[in-house]
C-alpha cells in the first residue's frame, strides 16, 4: 500500500496526535518539547494534503508561539522571586498590601515561563497537526452508525457558514445599489433581514431535498420491485462497519471476540442478539423498541460511570485510584457497546469508508508509544528528566530513552502512504 497515494484514516492521525499531546502534558523539559514540536512539523510537512484545512497549521504554530510569549510575559512580570536577577523594573504595589507587579525580573521566572508556555504551546501544535493531517469531514463521516444522522447534521451546519458569508456579501453589495447608506440604523434590517430570509429559504430547500433523498428513513419497504440489490442483500454484519473499520479487516470478517458476541461464524445471531436486532430480514417494531431501550440504558449507565470515573481520577482523595480508572474504562466499554447496539438498528451504509490498514495502526501505535514512554519515564525515570528544575539554571537533562521515544512518532512521516494531490484522481 505504501507506494500508492491515499489519505490515511483521520482517526489514526488523531490518535497519533493525542498520544503526542499526552506526552507533552507529562513534561516541561524544553528539549523534549522542542523535539515533539519538530516531529509534528516534520510529519505535517511530509504528509499533509493541499486542502484548505491543511493550510491552517501555520496558524496553530503562530498561536503556540503567542502562548509561549504570553506565559513568558506573565511569569517575568508578575512572579518575580528568584535568585538570579536579570534586570529590575519599577515595582508597582497595591497601596496597603503586599500585592506587587513588575519589580525585579529573575532568570528563574523567565525560565519557568518558557517551560510552562512551551508545554501548552506544543500541545496546541499537536492538535494543529491532527487538524492539518486529518480531513475533518472524513472524521465526522467515520462516526458510529448510531450517531450517523447527527454527524450529517454537523457536516451540513459546517457547510452553511461559507454560504452565509456569501449571502451577507451579496446582500450588502446589493444594498449599495439601492441606498448606499453605510451606517447603522438600518444596517441590521437591510442586511440581516434578506440574509435570514435567504438562509431560511435555503434550509427549507435543503430539508426538502434531503427528505426527498431518503434522509432519516427507517422504513425500507419501498424498494422497487426488480431492484434486488439493495438492503436485503446487504451482508448481515454491515451495521458493525464501525467496528470493522476499527479492527482493520477489510473483508469485514468479524474477529473472534465479536463472533462470540454475535453468534457463530456464519453470522447467525444468537438468541439474545436476535432479539436485540430483530430478524435478519427486517427488524420488527417491538424488537426494535426493546433494542432501543437496551442501548439507551447502556449509554446512560456509561455516561454515569464516565462522570464518576473522571471525577475520581481528577480528585484522588474521593475514591481509591484503581476504582476510578476501572469506572472510566468500564464506562468507555459500556458506551461502545451501547453505540454498537444502537448502530445495529441503523439502516444506513457508508460509501467508500476510509479503510484502516497497516499504516493506520502503525501511526496510532507510534503516537500512543510516545505517550507510554513519557508516562513510564515520569514514573520510573530519573528525577528532573521530565521536569527539569529551574532553580539551578542548569542545562536540562536528556536521555537516549527520551530521544528514541519521541523519534518513534516521526515514523509516520516515512512509513505512511503520501496523501493524494488535488489534481490527481483521489485515492
Amino acid at each position, binding site marked *: 500500500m505504501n507506494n500508492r497515494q491515499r489519505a490515511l484514516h483521520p482517526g489514526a492521525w488523531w490518535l497519533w496526535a493525542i498520544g503526542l499531546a499526552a506526552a507533552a502534558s507529562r513534561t516541561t523539559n524544553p528539549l523534549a518539547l522542542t523535539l515533539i514540536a519538530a516531529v509534528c512539523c516534520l510529519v505535517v510537512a511530509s504528509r499533509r494534503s493541499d486542502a484548505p484545512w491543511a493550510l491552517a497549521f501555520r496558524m496553530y504554530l503562530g498561536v503556540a508561539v503567542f502562548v509561549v510569549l504570553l506565559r513568558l510575559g506573565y511569569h517575568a512580570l508578575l512572579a518575580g522571586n528568584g535568585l538570579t536577577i536579570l534586570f529590575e523594573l519599577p515595582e508597582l504595589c497595591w497601596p496597603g498590601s503586599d500585592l506587587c507587579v513588575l519589580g525585579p525580573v529573575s532568570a528563574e521566572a523567565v525560565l519557568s515561563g518558557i517551560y510552562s508556555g512551551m508545554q501548552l504551546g506544543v500541545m496546541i501544535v499537536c492538535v494543529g497537526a491532527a487538524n492539518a493531517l486529518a480531513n475533518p*469531514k472524513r472524521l465526522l463521516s467515520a462516526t458510529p452508525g448510531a450517531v450517523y444522522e447527527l454527524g*450529517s447534521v454537523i*457536516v*451540513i451546519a459546517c*457547510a452553511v457558514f461559507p454560504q452565509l458569508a456569501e449571502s451577507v456579501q*451579496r*446582500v450588502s*453589495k*446589493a*444594498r*449599495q*445599489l*439601492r*441606498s*448606499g447608506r453605510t451606517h447603522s440604523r438600518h444596517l441590521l*434590517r*437591510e442586511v440581516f*433581514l*434578506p440574509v435570514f*430570509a*435567504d438562509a431560511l*429559504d*435555503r434550509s427549507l*430547500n*435543503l*430539508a*426538502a*431535498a*434531503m*427528505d*426527498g*433523498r*431518503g*434522509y*432519516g*428513513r427507517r*422504513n*425500507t*419497504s*419501498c*424498494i*422497487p420491485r426488480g*431492484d434486488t*440489490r*439493495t*438492503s436485503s*442483500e*446487504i*451482508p448481515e454484519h*454491515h451495521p458493525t462497519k464501525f467496528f470493522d473499520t476499527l479492527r482493520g479487516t477489510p473483508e469485514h470478517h468479524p474477529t473472534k471476540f465479536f463472533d462470540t458476541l454475535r453468534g457463530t461464524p456464519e453470522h447467525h445471531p444468537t438468541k439474545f442478539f436476535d432479539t436485540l436486532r430483530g430478524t435478519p430480514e427486517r427488524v420488527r417494531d417491538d424488537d426494535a423498541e426493546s433494542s432501543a431501550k437496551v442501548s439507551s440504558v447502556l449509554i446512560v449507565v456509561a455516561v454515569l460511570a464516565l462522570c464518576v470515573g473522571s471525577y475520581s481520577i481528577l480528585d484522588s482523595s474521593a475514591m481509591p485510584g484503581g476504582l476510578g480508572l476501572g469506572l472510566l474504562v468500564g464506562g468507555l466499554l459500556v458506551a461502545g457497546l451501547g453505540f454498537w447496539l444502537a448502530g445495529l438498528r441503523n*439502516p*444506513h*451504509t*457508508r*460509501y*467508500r*469508508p476510509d479503510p484502516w490498514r497497516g499504516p493506520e495502526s502503525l501511526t496510532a501505535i507510534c503516537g500512543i508509544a510516545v505517550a507510554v514512554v513519557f508516562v513510564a519515564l515520569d514514573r520510573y525515570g530519573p528525577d528532573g528528566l521530565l521536569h527539569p528544575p529551574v532553580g539551578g539554571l542548569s542545562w536540562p537533562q536528556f536521555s537516549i530513552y527520551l530521544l528514541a521515544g519521541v523519534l518513534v512518532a516521526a515514523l509516520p512521516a516515512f512509513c505512511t502512504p503520501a496523501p493524494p494531490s*488535488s489534481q490527481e*484522481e*483521489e485515492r
Partner: protein
Amino acid sequence: MIDFDDVSIAYQGADGPTLSHVNLHIDEGDFALVCGRTGSGKSTLLGAVNGHVPHFTGGRLSGRVRVASFDTREHPPRDLAAVVGVVRQNPLAGFVTDTVEEEVAFGMEQLGVAPAVMRTRVEETLDLLSIAELRSRALRSLSGGQQQRVAIASVLAAGARVLVLDEPTSALDPTSAEEVLAAMLRLVHDLGVTLLLAEHRLERVVEYADRMVVVDGGQVSSGTPAEMLATSPLAPPVVELGKLAGWSPLPQSIRDARRRAGDLRQRLAGLDPLAFPREAAPAQREVAANPALGLQARDIEVAYGRVRAVRRADLDLPAGEVTALLGRNGSGKSSLLWALTGVGAREGGTWCVGKVQLDREPSQARKLVRMVPQTASDLLYLNTVAAECAAADSENGREPGCCRAILDLLAPGIPADRHPRDLSEGQQLALVLAVQLAAKAPALLLDEPTRGLDYPAKAALGKALRELAAQGLAICVATHDVEFAATAADRAVVMAVGEIIAAGPVSAVLATSAVFAPQVAKTLSPAPWLSVGQVASALGSGK
C-alpha cells in the same frame, strides 16, 4: 407509472384549491412536459408526485396519487427516495455534501445500499451523465450545467426510475441547457426513465416531449404536444409561427418548421425585416436614440485574484435603446454590469453617462446608473409593498407616491399591504424595478431579469423596458433568453471569456449567430426575421 386519481390539493388559508379534480396518467418511459403560468399550480403538481405535497408543505390532499404503485398517502417522500427523484431549479440549494462523488452516493447511503453495489452504481452513473472527470471536484466550483447533471446523477444513482424536474434549465445559458437536456434525453431513451419536466421556455424542450401536461388555474389537461399546443396560450415562437402561417400539424422543432417554411419564405421575400416592428404594439418613441446621452464605457477591466473576469471591454448603451448582453455563464456579463454601477470590483477603465464622467465613488454613480441584480429580492427588506415604495421615495428625494405610480405602470394591482416576499417572481421584479426607477437615473442595468418568468410575464417585462427606453433611458439587459432579446432589444452585445466579441443591431448580431439565433430567425434564414410579431405585421402589410 404516475397516477393522479381525482386529486384535489388545497393549502390552508388559500381561497380555493390549488389543484382540483386532477386525473392524470403518465406511462412508464414517457417524457412528459408540464407547462403553465406562474402560480397555476405547476409546482404543487410536481411536488405531489413524491409526496412532498402535502407531507412536507402541509395542505389537504383528496383523491389518490400513486407512483410506481406506491400511494403517497402511506409513503412520505423519504420512503419514496428509491422510486422518485426530484431535481429543482437551483441544484446547489439541495446539495448535502460537498464533492461530486459523495453527493452521488448520499442517496444510496440513506437507502442502505450495500457498499459494493454502491461503488459500481456511482461509477455507472458518473459515466451515464458524463461527469466522471469531475468526481472529486467541489460542487460549488462546478458550472450550473454540471451542477444540474450531478443533481440528476445523485437521484438516479439511488435507483429512481421517475425523475421530476422543476425548471432545471432556467438559470443556464443555451449551451449548458442543451447539455442537461441531452443527458435527460439519453436517460429516457436508453434507460426508460419516466421524466416529468416543468419548463417555461418551451422552445427548448417541446420537440422532445411525448406528452404535454398543461396546468391552468388548478385544472390539468394533457395530450400529445401537437394537440396541446394548438390550443395552449403558452407556445414557443416556432409554434406561433406555424399558427400564423396556418401549418397543420403544427411544427415543434426548427427542423419541422424549416421544411414547411419554403412557402412562407417566398411570401416574405423582398420585404425588409427592419421595416416592421418586432412586437405587436410598439411603444411610441418620445426621443430618438442618442448614443451621446447614453452610457459609454471604455477599457473596463475586472479581476478577482488572478482571474480576469472582464478584459478591456468597451460598451456603449445609447439613450433610448435596449441593449441585450449575451454570453455563456461566467463570460463576465455580471462583472461588467456591477463594475458600471461603481459598486463591483473594477481594476481599470473609465465610463461616463452623457457628459458626466463617473469615478470609483458608488454614491456618484448611483445617481446616474441603477441596477436590478440577479437576486432582485436582495434589495427588499421591509414588510409591505407600500413601505418599500415609501422608502424608495424618501431615499431618492421624490414626492410620496412616485415609486407606487411607476409600480402601477409596470404591474398594476399589486396590493399595498402584501409582503414583498409573498409576491410572484414577476411582481417582485416589478417592485424592485420600480424602486430603482424612482431614482430617475438615465441608465438602467438588469442582470438576468427573465429567469423564472413565464411567457406573458416576459412579454410584460419586454414591453415595460421598451416603454422606458422610449422615454430616453439607456437600458442594458444581461440575459440567456435569446427569444426575449430578439423581441425586446434594439442592440445586442456578445461577451466571451471577458471580452466583447460582437456588438451591433439585434438583427445583425443575433440573426446570423449559430447559438444565439432565435427560432424565427433559424426558420426563416437567411433573411433576418427575428420575431413572430415582425412576420405577422409583414404579412399583414402584404395583404
